[in-house]
């Protein structure tokens, strides 16, 4: 093993790759070679670093210097200055949204400071395609401990102590599920990893699979031992080619080392894992639908009981857990359940990974202890709302979740408190919305999504959601009636109570939560025929405020419909007949003169 003085960790998560990080890596390597530094400085490709907004990202060790938004053109200068002459290049360093000072070190950047990495313990620190680097960070140590010194019952006991709950959304206690699965004496048994991440704005599972695939494989193998299962399946979306690529590499490497296959560590325990790319139906994230899909059938949920732990895949006892759940397992077995339970709240232990997106300064992948407040997530980690706008709501849990308003910013995020607020953890998508978001339109968006993705098996979800969508469409078109609000509430409640699977049971949540917290917006749409956030095109008319207009003419240039009349030294004017409300003029106006 060769020693280098410096490691350049280039982020190659999907976010940074799409910003050109692989190209950056090639340029770095060739420039280092030109400068004769190839023997001293090593370039390492890592999984998602988390700070996707600043990509492509590179972290320089041993100093821990964080560079952002690097381009191939920056490489020659950077290599000469930093790696040849030892002077970190200030212009590529991070600056916060509030302060102008440069923050050179990753550990000092607020985005990272408030995070606690457990499921993502190896993110940005290892080459995801190199099993040795995973092993160097205690990889497979938990598996060796389990296979050499623990009984399956002890493993399950440890997971129960940890209080780990399913990270896929519903939060079922993992230890309990494993115990159930172990109880049945029917063989073969199966273990499934659910990587069918479908919520809009969510990319936690993808990032775990890309950054640290072995942690998932190790967690599944430990689960297999606990259940006496010998075959694992990973169901992962086909839209995640990089995750699938890295999983394939990881499985291949684990097999070569005998960490998958027959007689692992000479213990007599056999375990294998295969990958199944799913075609991307939202409903296939539901466990029973996923299993049908794995069997080659149409992905539709079935009535429970029997639970999957009794009769799941091919009618055999099956335990299904989420990607992040499995990624937590090795750390629990290595450090003990008590260690895991030392973080978190009463009913929710450990940490949770969130995909923080929307109108927030620091978009990215974060991991925080359970019980962290929304305020910490949005303001301390997320860096607040950019462009001097106001926070309005945070959408948590995707189409099954809810929009939480400013008054709930101090809610401690865990399974139970979210449930109380009419939301749910979901898999961990967190979409921040500012005051230019219309909550009725947002509810309509998620309802539209649920209508599209409904599998159609049961009436409440298939028909009920469609009716809800029609009502919402009516409201945003300005044709709503006041009774519509009660209608939506009543119908939503029925759908929740009578739907077949978790999807339908939660699909009305976006509508119900926005009515609960933003009822005034519904009323404004219905009574005043106005959209307070100026989003719903049928309810808004743009006009120029002559007092604010500086007569610059930028709006006229921006208008694609030639609806704006303007001449030098006169305020502009909008022809309402021609205006298609595309907002181009609002974006073009530097003085906020268009209302």
């Amino acid at each position, binding site marked *: *093993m*060769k*020693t*280098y*003085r*410096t*490691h350049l*960790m280039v982020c190659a998560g999907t976010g940074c790759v799409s910003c050109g990080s692989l190209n950056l890596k090639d340029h770095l390597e060739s420039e280092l070679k030109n400068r*004769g530094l190839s*023997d*001293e400085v090593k370039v390492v490709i890592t999984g998602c670093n988390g700070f996707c907004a600043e990509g492509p990202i590179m972290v320089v*060790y*041993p*100093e*821990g*210097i964080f560079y952002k938004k690097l381009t191939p053109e920056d490489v020659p200068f950077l290599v000469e200055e930093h*790696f*040849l*002459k*030892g*002077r*970190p290049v200030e212009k590529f360093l991070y600056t916060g949204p509030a302060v102008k000072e440069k923050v*050179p*070190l990753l550990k000092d950047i607020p985005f990272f400071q408030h995070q606690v990495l457990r499921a993502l313990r190896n993110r940005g*620190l*290892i080459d995801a395609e190199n099993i*040795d*680097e995973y*092993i*160097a*960070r*205690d990889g*497979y*140590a938990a598996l*060796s401990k389990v296979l*050499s010194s623990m009984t399956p019952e002890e493993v399950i006991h440890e997971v129960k102590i940890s209080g780990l709950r399913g990270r896929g959304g519903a939060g079922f206690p993992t230890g309990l599920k494993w115990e159930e699965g172990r109880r049945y004496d029917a063989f073969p048994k199966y273990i499934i990893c659910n990587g069918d991440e479908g919520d809009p704005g969510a990319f936690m599972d993808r990032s775990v699979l890309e950054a640290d695939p072995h942690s998932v494989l190790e967690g599944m193998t430990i689960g297999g031992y606990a259940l006496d299962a010998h075959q694992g399946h990973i169901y992962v979306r086909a839209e995640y080619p990089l995750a699938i690529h890295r999983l394939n590499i990881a499985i291949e490497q684990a097999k*070569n*080392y*005998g*960490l998958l*296959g027959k*007689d692992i*560590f*000479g213990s007599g325990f056999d375990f294998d894992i295969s990958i199944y790319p799913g075609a991307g139906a939202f409903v296939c994230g539901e466990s029973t639908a996923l299993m049908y899909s794995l069997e080659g059938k149409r992905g539709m949920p079935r009535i429970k009981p029997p639970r999957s732990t009794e009769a799941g895949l091919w009618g055999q006892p099956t335990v299904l857990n989420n990607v992040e759940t499995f990624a937590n397992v090795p750390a629990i077995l290595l450090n003990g359940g008590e260690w895991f339970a030392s973080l978190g709240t009463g009913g929710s232990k450990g940490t949770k990974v969130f995909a923080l997106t929307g109108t927030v300064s620091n978009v990215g992948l974060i991991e925080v202890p359970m019980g962290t407040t929304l305020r910490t997530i949005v303001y301390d980690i997320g860096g607040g709302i950019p462009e001097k706008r106001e926070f309005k709501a945070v959408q948590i849990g995707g189409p099954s979740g809810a929009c939480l308003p400013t008054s709930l910013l101090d809610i401690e995020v865990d399974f139970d408190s979210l449930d109380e607020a009419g939301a749910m953890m979901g898999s961990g998508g967190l979409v921040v919305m500012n005051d230019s978001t219309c909550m009725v339109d947002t509810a309509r968006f998620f309802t539209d999504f649920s209508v599209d993705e409904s599998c159609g098996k049961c009436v409440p979800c298939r028909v009920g959601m469609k009716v809800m969508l029609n009502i919402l469409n009516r409201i945003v078109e300005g044709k709503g009636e006041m009774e519509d609000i009660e209608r939506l509430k009543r119908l939503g409640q029925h759908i929740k109570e009578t739907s077949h699977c978790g999807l339908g049971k939660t699909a009305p949540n976006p509508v119900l939560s926005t009515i609960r917290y933003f009822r005034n917006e519904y009323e404004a749409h219905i009574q005043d025929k106005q959209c307070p956030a100026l989003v719903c095109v049928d309810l808004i008319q743009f006009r120029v405020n002559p007092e604010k207009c500086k007569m610059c003419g930028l709006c006229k240039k921006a208008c694609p419909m030639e609806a704006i009349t303007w001449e030098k030294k006169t305020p502009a004017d909008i022809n309402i007949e021609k205006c298609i409300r595309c907002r181009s003029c609002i974006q073009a106006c530097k003085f906020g003169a268009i209302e």
Partner: protein
Amino acid sequence: MAKLTIEDLKRIKEEVRSTTVLREGGFRAKINIHMGTCGIAAGARKLMSVVLKEIEEKKINDVMVTTSGCAGLCSREPMATVEILGNPPVKYCDLNEERMKEIFAQHVLKGEIVEAYALARGSETTY
């Protein structure tokens, strides 16, 4: 590749960790080779190779190697600064490969300052 035993796993861990540990922080000592134009011209690169080779051969994993620009004393290059954490850094000047090796053995590993080549205590700030 043959099946891994638990011992193999531990061996791989130790081997690889010695090369990746620099990502984790927790250093005992820091060697800063001054790599301004003057330093490079005077042969700082060779010092760097010596240090890296020593670290590799002796499987040392708690020493951090960095570079910095010109220290302002171009006539005494090549120079290096050695800092045992918790102690003030020591600047060495007029170095060559042999002297660097000696400093590595005495100061970095044993904590004894090699006064013969030492210039001063203290250092310019680097990250």
